[in-house]
Each structure stands twice: as structure tokens, then as C-alpha cells.
């Protein structure tokens, strides 16, 4: 009797085939959106052109005309980039202090920060509208940047904290001995050492900002409206504009999906707060 069982037929052919089928099924809606984006609006709803059609770029070329796409995309880029930068700017010193000079309260502070992430946004919908409208901040880039930054700050600080914890304390302390200032320490020692961790944290933060769809919809009208708002505003084209809507949707999610491929690992960390290893 063989001790090591021979791989069954299923293990050899069935499992890979099934895995591929599942993968393709999950990807299919995205694939279909991209296919539809190359059809004219008329072709997109005709069963006879379901698979065979003449591909056209017109939906992409007319994105500005049809939807003012680049204005919304510009807002998305501006708000997501500045929110990420600001979050890191506040988050790095905070995580640095927590990782290298922890006090007894550090754990509680971290847990409290995470708990703010768990508050349902809708609960404070009216106060937020009220405050921002009376402060004249409603529908401004500044407001959206701050809100995006605050909702992602707990995750960012938490992720940075876990990366910084891995750095040997001696290296930082050696810097302190040499009389380097705190800012110097962060800039010259910490950031170069934890560069990979910081970069992937930033990437994940950027993705979350880009995809955010509550405050960006409720706290904007036109000036600071992001792509979420644009798509939400064109929710029901009743089949008239499937082609152009697919194009604008594909343009809105394409870059982010590709970025996402590069930070799968960080996603697990960032979204489970390190509880799954």
C-alpha cells in the first residue's frame, strides 16, 4: 500500500478547472462592463450585438461631453491624494510615539481610535450637514479631504503602528543617543526604514478614499463632487446609455482595481486590524 496517496483525478484536473471557473465568474461583471463600454449606446441593448459588434472608442472620447468626467475625476484625485497625505502627516508621528514610547494607555487609545471607525456614518448625517453648511464648508474640497482623512485615520494609524513595531528599538534609540531631534529621527531613520509599510498603507488609504460613497455623496453637490457622486447621479439610464455609462464606470474603477491587485496582503491587515495573521 502506498503511503502517500496518489493525487486523485479531481486534484489534478477538477480543482484547477473549478478554481478557474470561479475566478472567471467573479471577474465576469467587470469584464462585461468593459465590453459594453466599447459598444455604441444603440448596440449595447441589442441582443443581436451581444457578442458580435463593432468596437468603438466613442464612449471614451465623449466622456467629457457626456458626463464632464474629468472634472469629477479631478475632484476624486485631489481629495483622495490630499486626504492620504494629510492622514500620513498626522498618523506617522502618532504611530511613531505609540510604537517607540508606549505608555499604559497606548492600547486603550488604539482601541478607542478603532471604535470611532465603527460608528455608523448615517447617525451623524444631519449634524454634519448642519455644521458644514453653517461654516460655509459644504461642497468644498477642504471638507471632503478632512472627512476622508478622519474616517481612514484609525486604520492608517493602526497599520503604521504594526509596521513600526517590527523595527528594532535599538536603531531608534541609537539615533536619540546621537542627539538627533525627533523630527530628524522620523525623517532620517523611521521613514527610510519603514518605507514599504508606509507606501502600502498610503496605497490602501488612497483606495478607500477613492471608493468612499456616503459622505462624498451627501456632503457635495457640484464643486467637490467625486466620481461616486457622478455615478450615483446617473443611476438609472433605463437602457438609453448603457454604452457611455459603462465607459465612465470602467474609467472610474479601472485604475483602482489595478492598484488593488498590488496590495492584497495589506488589505487583510488593514481591514481586520491585524486580528487575522
Amino acid at each position, binding site marked *: 500500500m502506498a503511503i502517500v496517496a496518489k493525487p486523485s483525478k479531481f486534484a489534478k484536473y477538477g480543482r484547477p478547472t473549478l478554481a478557474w471557473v470561479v475566478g472567471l465568474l467573479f471577474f465576469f461583471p467587470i469584464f462585461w462592463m468593459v465590453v459594453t463600454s466599447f459598444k455604441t449606446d444603440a448596440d449595447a441593448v441589442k441582443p443581436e450585438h451581444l457578442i458580435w459588434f463593432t468596437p468603438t472608442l466613442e464612449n471614451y472620447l465623449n466622456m467629457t461631453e457626456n458626463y464632464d468626467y474629468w472634472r469629477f475625476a479631478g475632484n476624486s484625485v485631489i481629495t483622495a491624494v490630499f486626504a492620504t497625505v494629510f492622514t500620513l502627516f498626522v498618523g506617522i508621528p502618532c504611530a511613531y510615539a505609540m510604537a517607540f514610547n508606549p505608555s499604559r494607555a497606548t492600547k486603550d487609545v488604539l482601541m478607542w481610535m478603532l471604535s470611532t471607525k465603527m460608528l*455608523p456614518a448615517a447617525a*451623524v448625517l444631519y449634524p454634519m450637514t448642519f455644521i458644514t453648511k453653517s461654516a460655509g464648508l459644504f461642497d468644498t474640497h477642504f471638507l471632503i479631504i478632512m472627512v476622508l482623512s478622519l474616517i481612514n485615520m484609525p486604520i492608517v494609524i493602526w497599520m503604521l503602528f504594526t509596521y513600526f513595531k517590527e523595527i528594532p528599538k535599538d536603531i531608534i534609540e541609537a539615533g536619540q543617543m546621537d542627539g538627533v531631534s525627533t523630527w530628524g529621527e522620523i525623517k532620517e531613520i523611521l521613514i527610510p526604514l519603514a518605507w514599504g509599510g508606509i507606501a502600502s498603507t498610503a496605497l490602501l488609504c488612497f483606495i478607500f478614499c477613492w471608493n468612499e460613497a456616503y459622505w462624498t455623496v451627501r456632503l457635495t453637490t457640484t464643486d467637490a463632487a467625486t466620481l461616486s457622486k457622478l455615478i450615483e447621479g446617473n443611476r438609472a439610464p433605463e437602457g438609453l446609455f448603457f454604452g457611455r455609462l459603462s465607459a465612465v464606470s470602467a474609467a472610474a474603477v479601472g485604475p483602482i482595481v489595478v492598484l488593488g491587485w498590488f496590495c492584497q496582503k495589506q488589505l487583510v491587515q488593514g481591514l481586520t486590524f491585524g486580528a487575522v495573521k
Partner: protein
Amino acid sequence: MSDRKLPRLLQSPAVILLLIWMLIPLGMTLYFSFIRYVLNNLRRPEWTTPSLSNWRGFGNYEFVLNSKDFLFAIQNSLLIVCSILILTVVLGVLIAVLINKTFPGQGIVRVLLISPFFVMPAVNAVLWINMILDPVLGLQGIAVGSINDMLDTLRNAPLVGWFFSLWPELEPISFRATQTSAYAVIIMVTWQWTPFAVLIFMTSLQSEDQQQKEAAVLDGASIWSQFRFLTLPHLARPIAIVVMIQAIFHLSLYAEIEIVSRGNGNKNLPYLIGEFANNNIGAASATGIFAVILANIVAFFLLRMIGRTLME
């Protein structure tokens, strides 16, 4: 500067910002939930400005608890959240076990699988409700239409025609009605979050004790009992975490409901708050406090679990 003061100083911007972000709006919600506060009321204009003299005690809470909308929204929230949880966990475990062994193209399959998670919620909803689920022009409508056409042809065929004339015409499902649009939301969110569950379960499976597994194989344990007595217990903790994190996220599900069901009666708590907030701020705030309580019940257990691993 002394060593002890500095860390507190470096933490303070983040702490202060988050404190403001949490306390001020939440404090206002709490305050508004105890007063009469509406945006438009011609007969009682004094109610249109927030003031302590409009104190209502628990009146808003009573009003909300007695409104049909609230009960329906709670039921609907639970239906949506629980269905998504069951589907994503079951699918997630199955798919994670399926693709955990190396096979040709494993990396590509992983990339294909994880992609839906990065699609922005608004696009997810617009894509599914129009291009895929639309009863006439979407893939669903086209599929049902072509099956019906085929049946029609077969009905007119000689010899077998009588048999197919016994078959009914297929009816496409409209996913824009109250109940069916809840199903549409469940489908699209399950599509988006199953990859998340898969990713977490796969991460966890990689730390599974391989020696134990080999020992089980040598003892002649069947694949089923390996799964049941080794893999599943190993996944218990990640499953709990996936359930809690998703519960918190999906209790505040908004974009999908807004896009799929505007005005058709399919609402969850955040959507109901949005509706109340058009006029009755008191009721919106009371509903908001209920939402906070609901989320906190889940968050309490989640935070305890995270806390245990935090300082390891």
C-alpha cells in the same frame, strides 16, 4: 523636552482630531434626538430652530419605535446583512479551500477573484442593476428573452411541438420592486465582499498546521473529516472576524440602496435616517442613536477580539 511628554505631544493631533470628529456630531445627534426639531412647520415655527425649550424627552424615540418604517427598516437591514453574511462566509470558505492548493495560474485566479472588492460601491450598483439584472435590456432580460424565443421555435416544430407547448413562458424578474431590490442588493454586495472573505480565509489557511494534516491523511481521514475537524475549527476565528467586520460595514450600507431602490420602499436604517433628515431631524437623530447602539453591540465583541491580538 523630556521623553515622557513627547509621545503624548506627537499623538495629540490625531487624538484631538478624532475626538472632535466623534464627539461633536454625535453629541449634536444625541441633543437633537431629545428635542422637537423639524425643518419646515408653518404652524409651529418655533420647532424649526433647535432649542432646549422644545424638549421632548423620549418622545422622538417613541415616535420612531411606533413608526412602521422603522420596524420595516430594521427587518430589512437584518435580512440584507444576515443574507450577505451567510452567503459570503459559505462561499468564502469553499472558494478559499478550493484555491488554497497550488495549481497552474493560481496567481491569476487570485487576481480575478479579488478584483470585485476594489470596485466602488456606486459602480457596483449601477453595473448590476442595469447591465446585468435589468429585466428587459440587461443580461437577465436578454437571457430570458432568448430562452423564450427558443421555446417558441420548438413549439412550432413537428413531432415534439406538443411537448414544448406544455412549457410556460419564462418571466424575467424585475429587481426594482421593494422586495426584489433587497435581493439585488444582497447579490451585488455578496459579489463584492466574497473576495474579502476568501482573502482572509486564505491568509489564515496558510498558517494551518500541515503536519497535523499529514498525520490525519496517514490515519486515513477522509477529505470531509479533514475539513470538518481540522480546517473548519482553524477557520473559526477568521470567520468570526469576517462576520463582525462585515456586519459593521453592511449595517451602514448606503450607496447600493440609494441607487437600486430610491423611492421604492426598500430601505435600511441609514436610508431611513436620510429620509427623516429631509424634515424631521428629531426622528432622524433618534434613529441614528438606534443605529449607533446596534453597531456598538457588534463592535464590542470585535474590539475585544482585536484587543487580544493587538499587543502580541
